[in-house]
């Protein structure tokens, strides 16, 4: 459990961090909360030549309203998000999901930017950000770009993040009035990562589900929006029967993960159960 040798840099600003990342012949990695990276270093699964620690960059740690969105600085900790009154008011599933990550020690240090950059298929933020229709802001020396969450998460531990780029902000659109959101999670008992995590955002107008977004973590090799479930409920009355029928469509046509704690059939069953539970919370 001893990492290979590396240089450690603590960046004071985003510009400094970008410069430190841009070193010729050095494989440099961004360190934020470190909850995924440091174990990988200790097991020597990852052996970067340098770490650029961005966790203390003050300009990256904020949660504030910005027009019709809530902007979350990428080094905001899970605890920051769990305790945000602004997010609780507008999109409750973010604080709810944050409170289900790890334990207090993890939440105090782990960051949303680090989590999405790592893109563990069982992590909580990716699916939540898909369902929130969030945008991810990335910066490099060349400038800044903004991607829809859908375009950011590419696959198994894979994102659109390029070398020399840092996640700087997550932008979550403020949903229309009457929209509810939730994150329901079935935890792996040891790691407490999601075996199935279901994020659901539903707007009910006059008893009808006018907008439905459902996304899963843990089920497949990457987070995904479940359009089958969404389409089965959009335009339908928010009844228990309709919710159950829509949930029954969960995780169709995706390649489902299988492991020690949940084989494919059981995981798929849980996806249906958790889609139903999540939709019941927001539309039931």
């Amino acid at each position, binding site marked *: *459990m001893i990492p290979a040798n590396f240089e450690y840099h603590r960046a004071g600003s985003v510009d400094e961090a970008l410069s430190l990342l841009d070193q010729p012949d050095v494989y440099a990695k961004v360190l934020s909360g470190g909850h995924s990276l440091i174990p990988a270093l200790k097991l020597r699964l990852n052996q970067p030549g340098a770490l650029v620690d961005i966790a203390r960059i003050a300009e990256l740690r904020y949660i504030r309203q910005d027009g019709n969105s809530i902007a979350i600085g990428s080094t905001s900790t899970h605890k920051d998000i769990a305790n945000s009154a602004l997010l609780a008011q507008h999109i409750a599933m973010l604080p709810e999901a944050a409170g289900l990550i790890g*334990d207090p020690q993890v939440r105090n240090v782990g960051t949303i930017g680090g989590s999405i950059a790592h893109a563990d298929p069982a992590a909580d933020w990716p699916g939540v950000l898909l369902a929130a229709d969030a945008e991810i802001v990335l910066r490099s020396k060349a400038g800044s770009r903004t991607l829809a969450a859908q375009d950011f998460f590419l696959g198994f531990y894979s994102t659109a993040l390029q070398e020399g780029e840092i996640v700087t902000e997550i932008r979550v659109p403020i949903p229309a009035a009457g929209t509810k959101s939730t994150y329901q999670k*079935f935890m792996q008992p*040891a*790691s407490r990562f999601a075996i199935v995590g279901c994020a659901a955002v539903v707007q009910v107008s006059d008893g009808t589900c006018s907008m439905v977004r459902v996304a899963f973590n843990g089920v497949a090799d990457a987070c995904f929006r479940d359009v089958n479930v969404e389409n089965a409920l959009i335009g339908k009355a928010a009844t228990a029967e309709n919710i159950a029928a829509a949930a029954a469509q969960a995780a169709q046509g995706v390649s489902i993960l299988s492991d*020690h*704690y949940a084989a494919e059939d*059981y995981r798929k069953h849980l996806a249906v159960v958790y889609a139903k539970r999540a939709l019941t919370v927001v539309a039931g």
Partner: protein
Amino acid sequence: MTYIGQSVKRVEDKRFTTGKGKYTDDIKLVGMTHAHIVRSPYAHAIIKSIDIDTALAHPGVVAIFTGKDIAAAGINGVPAGWQVNFKDGTTMKEPPHPLLVADRVKHVGDGIAVIIAEDLATARDAADLIEIDYEVLPCVTNPAEAVKAGAPQVHDNAPNNICFDWELGNPKAEVDAAIAASHHVTRLDLVNQRMAPNAIEPRSAIGHYDDSKDKFTLYTTSQNPHLTRLLMCAFVLGIPEHKVQVVAPDVGGGFGSKIFHYIEEALVIWASKQIGRPIKWTSTRSEAFLTDAHGRDHVTTAEMGFDKEGKVTALRVSTFANLGAYLSTFAPAVPTYLHGTLLQGLYTTPKIHVDVTAVFTHTNAVDAYRGAGRPEATYLLERLMDTAALEMGMDPAELRFKNFIPAFDGVTQPGYQTQVALQYDSGNYEPVLERGLEMVGYENFRKEQAEARKNGKLLGIGFSTYIEACGIAPSAVVGALGARAGLYESAQVRVQPTGKVSVFTGSHSHGQGHETTFAQVVADRLGIAMEDIDIVHGDSDSVAFGMGTYGSRSLAVGGSAIVKSIDKVLEKGAKIAAHKLEAAEEDLEYAGGRWTVKGTDKSIGFGDIALTAYVPHDYPAGLEPGLDFSSFYDPTNFTYPFGCHIAIVEVDAETGKVTLKRFIAVDDVGNVINPMIVDGQIHGGLAQGIGQAMLEGVAYDAEGQLMTGSFMDYAMPRADDLPSFEIDRKVTPCPHNPLGVKGAGEAGCIGSTPAVVNAVMDALTPFGIIKNLEMPMTPQRVWRAMHQK
């Protein structure tokens, strides 16, 4: 002042909670080097070649030793401390367990080379520079598979991978006949899964050879430093014992895993002399999962016969016990004399037969783990009882009342002779179950359960009424059963000239709170303040000898040894007091730290007598100066704590997730010195036993790779997995030790596991009687159990 029976706060906790505990890894010696062990990534492979040249040339590397060096030095492997014979009388197979393997590795984690460097990072870096060429061979990890024809063989000299077969109880034919004649037979095929002990402090060892004295010092995370010294000196390295000091300083938990003598201890001692510098090795958590001796791992078929009224007629048990690739120190004793002997349980079962086949597999060694054999016995007995109750349509509590052994105190009534060798010391079993039923509100619960079922909620209740054999001893008995060591304890009580007292005990505290409990006993017996007493343990140069701490033995055996020495102190003190008070010894009484001439106000204090003993100017003729006594205490029997554990669970019908709603434990551990510490032991034991039922379990894949090699995959019980425990006690004193104590360290872990599984079985009765619930009862397994055809 009375300390016994008071919840005195633990005196050791000040240093533990303020970060001032001194653990092995905290020790830094001048010139100390650091060791990293290169371990096999394969379960079974031939080492075709090892190239260490590049690693040896790496800057900062001091030395590298491989299995060839160990073999060339003529070093023996680590031995087993217990011998069990085959049924036909031949000796068990005892293949060598070399410190480092030269030819064929036998489990993932087997040691191949030790790299010693100026610092740990360098040693670890150099490991990546060692090139090893393996020829990977097929492996076997399941004990029931390992004995089959054609299974890969772990050792050349253990055909069919069998270490020994063994039986105990009534003649098999009699038991077979009794089972055949039974009105009802309940049969269960059970797996008592393999457990990782996971002490919070990983193992660590520092070897130091001092050539000026030609003496070795080993600092190690041990539950019994003297036994480690004996095994390492006499059996492995051939170093005279008086040339080795073994120190086990503060030790952060063991749960059995730190009883045993491990290869790393002998390695750092031997290698420290080769390089002339101290060497520290500390396990990583990954290594701990791979190499700390695991627990349990039984594959069992158990059958219990009943007559029409529900009286047990017979018990027949057949077990494959997985010992892993090598025999750890006490491994042979666990599935035999600590398991088979407990199969009487609390019941009057007239015919019992147990058959055990101990098996080598390509896995890490299995040895004693909190409870050691007794949880396995309790698990199968108590699973049988609740299952039989369901099958026969009887109430599980009622079935137990029908079968309990009647009360006996072991003083005016004899002990209870079981069918499986042991004689229970004292017992009164009905009250613990009665109290448990009262605490749980049994009748109300059954109503609530029926209501819940109407609403589709799956509530269940499970019982376990257990007994354990603790205070592991006496020597003559364990010797007859194959122990290669005695199982007494030593204690020295040294009264200092000022009347302060140092107590040297061979017990070893690694979390138990001996510095408090033992001091309470000493303070009461001597009538002095606890602050005036120091409990010294864990250093072979201070403590005469010791058999260490495991098997809930410290207070019953180690505490009794202390009492013996205190008695000697008081006996001599009385002689000095009689002289000083000019009275006859028989006219003196001792209370509150003073000898008083009965019926007078003439008295003298303990401190004055202590000073007189060391400044013997006015002193009894012919009496030796000094006030310092040693004793060895070898009890006449084990002790037999017992109790009743009741679990209430709710199962999520959609996901199979089990929530433990309530847990009631009524334990009888004999007399109690410190109720808070006993409660703590019970709570910790319950968490561990419940952890086995619901969360924990070591799993190897088909290639012998550990699938549960970190806390990301091996689920430990956490506070939010557990309800607030409801506990109570009954007291049936032990009749054969001076304190009347039985031991509390393992009770929680022994009783609780089957109660939880039984509760899930009860909750699932709407799906039928589900007998094949495997532990840990993960949601997936429970869901499958509900939906099996």
